């Protein structure tokens, strides 16, 4: 299982802030994980794949990482602090 976190408008779209994703055998990429968790939600799938969305895996920014069990994968839309 990987722990998936959504923030900002992505959490609103997903209707929740986090979910547990069971990983299939073999290598799971970020794109593969998105397909896995959004197979019934094309709108969320498209939103997660937008170029402006950043991905942090285990607190590191890395879009190319392979996701394994117990990883924490956070999807971040454009930020707006201050």
């Amino acid at each position, binding site marked *: 299982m990987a722990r998936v976190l959504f*923030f900002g408008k992505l959490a609103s779209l997903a209707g929740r802030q986090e979910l547990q994703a069971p990983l299939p055998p073999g290598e799971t990429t970020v794109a593969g994980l998105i397909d896995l968790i959004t197979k019934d939600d094309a709108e969320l799938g498209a939103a997660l794949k937008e170029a402006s969305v950043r991905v942090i895996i285990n607190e590191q920014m890395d879009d190319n990482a392979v996701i394994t069990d117990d990883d924490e994968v956070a999807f971040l839309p454009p*930020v*707006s*602090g201050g």
Partner: protein
Amino acid sequence: MIRVSEDMIDPGEVLAAFESSATNAGAVVSFLGRVRSQAGETEVRSLFLQHYPGVTEKYIANVEAETRRRWTIDDILIIHRVGELKPGEAIVFVCVSAAHRREAFEAADFLMDYLKTEALFWKKEITQAGETWIEPREQDYMDAARWNQLSKDR
């Protein structure tokens, strides 16, 4: 020091404490960001701010370290609110102390540009018309890009 919390910010009290501990600094600069009461023509009822607990703070700490590499700074304090905020309340308070004013001004400006465009916060504006997640304005990105140019020039 970095603090991300739902607690209200009392800028007077925080600045007084920061200033009294900055015994050797010739300059103390502070910036206070507040919730606007208007979004264009629309009245803002409240803001909701979200962060990535633990990770937001860690990334801000990296930028604090970068700030200390670029300028000779005595002390830095960054306080950022999360949760529900009402118009007029403080969202962000940044204090910088340094030997001279230029360093303190520039460091505070740099930190604020980072907090507006890079730091892991998400802000939702709640008005009569509904709720909207806010994204940085083009001007915010241009402000932040100045520092890349500045480091090339140096």
